[in-house]
């Protein structure tokens, strides 16, 4: 398995080798070949963007926005600096895939960022790495040094006359800095809070310059696409859902971890790969894409395939592919309390509905969990959620509401039981 002889493992193939993160491992198996080809042949940017569009690669950070389309928003003839930014600020509960890319395949990300930088005419690139994975910040810096020493970064890359450099930037663990404009503010040294959009980063981004921001897995997929073509990538998955995707399984499974599978793989197969529900218990619920997407009942999930469109049709989102599995021992009130606390803590506090509403929702759920719920609380929660949703500067408000509304939608009876009996129905 390698970039030379591909299988479905787009981003995780180096883990089959000793020293997966080493430059030697990467180059020995086809690494940087795509970049070399592009620089040698001076592949036009349009051709690269067309290939990415053909691949149906969609943003792996959670929003699933078509990458090729995003790249085409960058102004072509802009007279000034442009930037490419990689979003490795992986902070949502349930997500841990980007960390493994940084850890085991840093050069594929570097090559991806180089190709993106070349295509978009960027002067430099930044990789914003979550503050709580400082080890990966260091290891990625080491990988940059390796790449620089080998002539892949810096001035006159591979003798092509093209200059480009990459820098690592680490945050301090704020979830909101994963929002792309908050991330830009943070790189600029300001308080990490989202900007009002428009203007979008493609016209007013880092330091006010045109900027493209992509997720780690997205950028790391680029060398594979350029090596084997957009069609091959698309063929790994299904139409409109190209490629493979890393799914991070956590919660009640036998073997939690990252699994890279083709888009469109049935959830049941994915669950099987992770050894099934822990202890063979009954599957109760799944959050398919990270804590901010709506929860789905286990039975519903077992019918779905793992791709953007299938999950969306069922009323949730594929998100970052962070699959949180819950068995029948889980109290949904307690689970929601924990999630609500996360958003309450992580709201940046800039705009009113999120600043005030996330704390309110948490407190009401906390009360219910602790036997002090009131019958009117469930309607109140729905209403507070509605008042946040769609009325904030960034999507954190919506993310905070997603779990609340979906938990109440699918598991309302548990909340009602808590309120009425002042205790949990699970195990009762």
């Amino acid at each position, binding site marked *: 398995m390698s970039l030379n002889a591909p299988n479905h493992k787009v981003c995780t193939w180096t883990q089959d080798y000793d020293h997966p993160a080493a430059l030697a491992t990467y180059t020995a198996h086809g690494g940087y070949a795509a970049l070399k080809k592009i620089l040698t042949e001076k592949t036009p940017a349009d051709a690269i963007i067309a290939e990415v569009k053909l691949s149906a690669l969609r943003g792996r950070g959670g929003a699933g926005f078509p990458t090729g389309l995003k790249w085409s928003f960058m102004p072509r003839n802009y007279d000034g600096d442009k930037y490419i930014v990689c979003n490795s600020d992986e902070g949502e509960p349930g997500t841990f895939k980007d960390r493994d890319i940084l850890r085991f395949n840093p050069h594929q990300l570097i090559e991806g960022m180089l190709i993106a930088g070349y295509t978009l005419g960027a002067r430099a690139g930044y990789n914003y790495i979550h503050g709580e994975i400082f080890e990966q910040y260091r290891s990625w810096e080491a990988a940059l040094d390796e790449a620089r020493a080998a002539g892949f970064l810096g001035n006159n890359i591979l003798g092509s006359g093209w200059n480009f450099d990459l820098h690592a930037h680490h945050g301090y663990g*704020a979830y*909101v800095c994963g929002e792309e404009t908050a991330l830009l503010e943070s790189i600029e040294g300001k*308080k990490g809070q989202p900007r*009002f959009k428009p203007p979008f980063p493609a016209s007013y981004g880092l330091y006010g310059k045109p900027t493209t921001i992509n997720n780690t897995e997205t950028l790391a997929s680029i060398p594979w696409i350029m090596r084997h073509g957009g069609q091959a990538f698309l063929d790994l998955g299904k139409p409109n859902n190209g490629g493979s995707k890393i799914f991070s399984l956590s919660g009640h499974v036998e073997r939690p971890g990252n699994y890279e599978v083709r888009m469109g793989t049935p959830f049941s197969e994915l669950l099987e790969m992770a050894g099934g529900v822990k202890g063979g218990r009954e599957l109760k619920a799944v959050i398919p894409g990270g804590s901010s997407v709506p929860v789905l009942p286990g039975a519903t999930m077992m019918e779905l395939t793992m791709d953007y469109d299938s999950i969306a049709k069922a009323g949730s989102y594929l998100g970052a592919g962070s699959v949180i599995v819950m068995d029948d021992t889980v109290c949904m009130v307690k689970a929601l309390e924990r999630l609500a606390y996360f958003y*309450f*803590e*992580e*709201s*940046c*506090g*800039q*705009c*009113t*509905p*999120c*600043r*005030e*509403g*996330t*704390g*309110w929702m948490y*407190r*009401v759920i906390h*009360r219910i969990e602790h036997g002090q719920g009131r019958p009117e609380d469930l309607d*109140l929660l729905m209403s507070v959620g*509605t*008042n946040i949703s*769609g*009325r*904030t*500067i960034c999507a954190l408000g919506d993310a905070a509401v997603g779990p609340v509304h979906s938990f109440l939608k699918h598991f309302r009876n548990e909340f009602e039981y808590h309120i009425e009996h002042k205790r949990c129905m699970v195990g009762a």
Partner: protein
Amino acid sequence: MPLVTIDNKEIEVPAGTSVIEAAQQLGIYIPHFCYHKKLSIAASCRMCLVEVEKAPKPLPACATPVADGMKVKTRSQYAIDAQKGVMEFLLINHPLDCPICDQGGECQLQDIAVGYGGVESRYAEAKRVVSEKDLGPLVATDMTRCIHCSRCVRFGQEIAGQMELGMPGRGEHVEVMPFLESQVNNELSGNIIDLCPVGALTSKPFRYHARGWELSRRLGVSPHDSLGSNLTVQVKDGRVQRVLPADNEAVNEGWLSDRDRFAYQGLYADDRLTVPMIKDNGRWIEVDWATALAQAAGALRVLKETHGGDALGFVASPAATVEELHLLQKLARSLGSSQIESHPLERSAGRGQARWLGMPVAKVNTLDRILLVGSTLRSEQPLLAARVRAAVKASAELSILHAANDTQNCAVANAVIAAPSQWLAALTEIEQALKGASASAEAQAIAASLKSGANKAVVLGAVAQIHPQADALHTKAAAIAAACGATLGFLPVGANSVGAAVVKAQSGDVFAAPRKGYVLLGLEPELDCVDGAAAMQALATAECVVGLTAYKGRAPEYATVLLPIAPWAENEGGLVNMEGRLQTFNAATRCQGEARPAWKVLRVLGNQFGLEGCDFDTVAAVRAEALPDGWLEGLNNAAPAVDLGAAVAGAIEWLAETPIYAVDAVTRRASALQATAMAAAPVATANASLLARLGGKTTLRVRQAGLAVELAVRQDDRLADGVLRIAAGHPHTVSLGARMGVLEVEA
């Protein structure tokens, strides 16, 4: 231009206009908190959410630019639901302490809550409590009331240019606060009180004094600098309780400096003179007006008859009104005196010339190149400094010539920092550089800057006007302005310096040769003159000194008759500001005690002498005579013909500026302003090398001619070498004598 429909009304507005602005033009009010027309868009309060056709979500009207064909509904159920939702969020953690909140009755949150708030709260949890912040003696805080609109933070960063407040913390823990162990110390800080839509930031001096609805409002004009900020003077129980800005885009743009805002406290100082007094055998006794006026007129008449008219000197504050100054000069001239002084803080031989800004105040914002000569701008003219900052933000280049490289509120492109005796040489170099001759790098840089750009100005500040070579600096600045096509401007020192010159209340140097008799109008001579010590000496030897003053101060030491006059809030009249704008005002309150407006006192004094043409019934009648048609043509910045001889340089030159809160008798008595860091007791500052030459002492005994003054010493490497900066206009430094002189330091 895009055509938008808001609530079924159509309007065409320029592209880029926001929905909230377009709605405003249609007379449609959209509730908001964080939006402010003078500040950047935050779009964070979300109160202005409106329904926009085809938009999937409600959009903030403040941050949504209009688009052609856009249809906006601000009062649809969809919009109202969004607005009410936000209102509820704003209220859940806002304390219900309106009854004890100073903002009550004039609170945006309260007002909007009436329209959009619920009858009862659905929030049953504990409310957030936020610790108080100490922002200094002017701004009181109740941070629990803060709704995080960030207006105060944005004001500091965007208008004042001083980032003293920020919003650290996240989520519910976001708090507005100053830097640790710091306060808000800028000269425009009071504006955050007006900007705060709730009672989180309120006026400390005004706290618990009155409710908004109990206050009557009068328009006023600030007399503390020559901008003449427009004021709303708020009065209760016959006292000024608070001063707020009145809207005038051409003058103060809705802002006030702290000096304009808080100086009113000085009106009620303990040493207000409220009854006429005469000195009787060395003892001061209170008398009625008739007695005092008769005494004054009698003594002056004797002096005139014995020694001639020029034995009498007339000195007025440049903040006195047009009418007062007109009557004063009329009285003086009728008595045969040519000794009239109304520019006591200027050194120019031709200071009767009505020197002005040379352009409208509003034009400052549009300048491309500015050369500021000898101006400590932020303390001289705080709001003009904000305009200069606006110009620089919009791409203007500011160059300065000063003895101190002070922190400005904006970027300085070029600076020549030199001892005052070198200023003329520095200007000469710039002039030469403009003509292509060789010059220093700094002069070349300034010349290069002045050569480019379209709208340019060379402006002389208060320090340049009190400079021993004031006229030579003027001449050189005029030459530079002419060479680069710039407007030559002055920053007049007093609120009515321009008006005083227009009414010809300036014709002599009254203290240079002591007079037998003096009439003083509204000034404290020891603090308000170029050489306070010499003034006091002249007054001490005079036989008769009639003081028209609002305060006793040190007047009992030198006066023979004290006539209580009305300070600004109790006075009426007109002031001519730096741009030649005549601004008139009526009394906001009654006079205290027996005090009377000075124009009435001068008029009656004229009657005492039997002078013709003194029978005015109204202040307007005086004004009509003082400012005949065409008076504006008297404004004139032409340079005098002077000898450009070398300055007297000494080892230690005194940089003698008037501190921001020591500009006049009222301000000097404003207790809150006097408690600020900017009003700290004078110290001597100098750069490291001068301090080393002075033996590295921690205190210095400094003198010029008179008694030595002991001062603490601080190092400030922003000062030019050889310069000792010591605040003038302060009782402690009076005996240093003539400002900007050469000092000796006792070993």
